[in-house]
């Protein structure tokens, strides 16, 4: 069973991303949305935890519309994290067996 994990809280304010990363499995995808997109950027105190999980085979995506809203350019996103739009969000939900929302 593959799971799409969505995280909508900033990793600098809540521990949602950390908890998510502690249970996410290699066949799953983590999608960062809303304030959660802050976790997708390079050179932050959260970057290493994303890279570590990526090394274990976890896939990562970030919602482009939420990056744009916050003035965060897509070229600042960690290498290997794919930028998706709302249609891509729907596709990810359809491609996985289940969706776990870390609210």
């Amino acid at each position, binding site marked *: 069973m593959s799971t799409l994990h969505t995280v909508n809280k*900033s990793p600098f304010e809540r521990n949602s991303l950390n908890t998510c990363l502690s249970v996410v499995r290699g066949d799953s995808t983590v999608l960062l949305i809303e*304030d959660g997109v802050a976790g997708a950027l390079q050179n932050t105190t959260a970057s290493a935890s994303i890279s570590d999980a990526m090394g274990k085979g976890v896939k990562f995506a970030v919602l482009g519309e939420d990056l744009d809203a916050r003035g965060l350019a897509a070229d600042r996103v960690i290498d290997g994290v794919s930028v998706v739009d709302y249609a891509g969000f729907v596709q990810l939900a359809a491609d996985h067996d289940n969706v776990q929302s870390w609210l």
Partner: protein
Amino acid sequence: MSDTKKFVYINRKAPYGTVYALESLEVVLIGAAFEQEVQLVFVDDGVYQLTKGQNTDGIGMKNFSKTYSALGDYDVNQIYVDEQSLKDRGLTMDDLQELTYEDEDDDWAEKSSMKLINREQLAELIDEADVLLNF
């Protein structure tokens, strides 16, 4: 004794994900009408409020980032950004919009309203405030 009080607004939330940032900005603008001394502090995720190039077309919310540039016209020209918060988020002052005001005591010269501060300076701002408002 002076009737003027020092109001310090401490902003610690990213914009759009919650309503805190917009509410703070509205309270600041309303409060500015009362001619008090106002200082704004952006710390933790609050620094995201000031990023350049915000475009909310895709999320269907009002882009209020341009409103910050009006603060100077309301004599809100003491805007402090916490350096450590920027660093932790891979940001620098270059990623933030430049907020300015026109100095009436200096032939209306345009000057920056923004100042980078460390935690010790933040402690001092808090210590010297008459009124602390947190968002």
